[in-house]
């Protein structure tokens, strides 16, 4: 399973935009896994309540997790979690 970040977040993710993860079964677990190594990245994506920031969108194989089970959306081998910042700002 692969987690893909937008380029703008690479500077708080050790310069990387892709992480190959094993042994995680949900979007939450995937974000927890990467966030443990990169705590600044973790808070860019989720607030202190653990909620996805309003203008951060997460897709699993192209499906917006907000339209599925949110952070509890299941992921498995071969799937891609894609993080994209949504349209916001003026």
């Amino acid at each position: 399973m692969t987690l893909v970040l937008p380029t703008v977040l690479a500077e708080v993710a050790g310069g990387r935009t892709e992480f190959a993860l094993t042994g995680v079964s949900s979007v939450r677990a995937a974000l927890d896994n990467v966030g443990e190594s990169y705590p600044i990245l973790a808070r860019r994506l989720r607030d202190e309540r653990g909620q996805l920031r309003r203008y951060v969108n997460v897709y699993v194989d192209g499906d917006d997790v907000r339209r599925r089970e949110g952070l509890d959306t299941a992921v498995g081998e071969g799937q891609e979690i894609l993080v994209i910042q949504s349209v916001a700002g003026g």
Partner: protein
Amino acid sequence: MDNPRYLLAIGTKKGLWLATSRDRREWELSDPQFLMQEIPSIGIDTREGRTRLLVGVRSEHFGPTVVHSDDLGQTWTEPERASIAFAEGDDAAVERIWQILPDTEDRPGVVWAGVQPISVWKSTDGGESFELNRALWEHPDKGDWGAGYGGAAAHSIVPDRKDAELVHIAMSTGGVYRSRDGGESWERASKGISAYFLPDPEPEMGQCVHKIAADVDGRLYAQNHRGVFRSDDQGERWVSIAEGLPADFGFVMLTHPRRAGTAWVIPLVSDYERIAPDGHLAVHRTDDAGETWKKFDGGLPERDFNVVLRDAAAVDGGDPVGVYFGTRGGSVYASGDEGESFVEVASRLPDVLCVRAAELW
């Protein structure tokens, strides 16, 4: 600029600019930093033999954070652990850091932060980590505090210069609160400040106080949502000092760092007409604690229909004191003569949300 004497930090809706000067007349403006991120708060800490810039940064996408620089903005540090973050059980998330205030010279390391949602935080390590003031966070009045247009935040923190246990804060809306025990407890301190938008026009709490500041003698000054006030008794009672001003609405309240009785405001017509009277920005200064006011507009444009927000004005520690402000139209002005005449430091920046200035040597 090599070896500048004055530093002016400009926080805008889309980035941070730093300006430096040797004489407060000629200014050199940096390129933007944190471009496309909002900078609602800046603190310049010149204590302990170094200049530390503390900056509240907020990304529309990726949330708020606090960063600091000890080399005048050449490099920035963001702690791995968030400087300001609610605990798991608080069921809250920091939305915006409105205020970063280094305390007095004799309280090294102490830095205060005012945050949205309404909360006050204190650091004892120079602003690298802050602790939530739980007494205010759990205050019984909390359910009655509201959100002004800009959001619900503790926007003013005024630690007393002499008594380390005495602290005043202000919020919109909620009013002024006072702690006499270093933040262990908080009591209402808004009597006399008006709130025309409430059924009781002179309530004990709920006022939309825009900014408070204290002079060197501990007298308090408030720019209210309609009304300019002073308190001589630590907020027990406030009296109007609006007479002599062209209007009593505005956001700015500044005080002189060394001379008691001197304060500055930048009046706007009213809440229904948020522009300077006649579309002409001017600074008004009192040197007698609000008994009389003098208008100064030297160097300011004939017409400017942009407002000056509550933290988009500051003084430095120079002698004479420098006065600075920026507008939502992106103009920034500096005065080296206590606000009597200004030069333009920058123009056509994004909306100016905050400015802070310091004399570096």
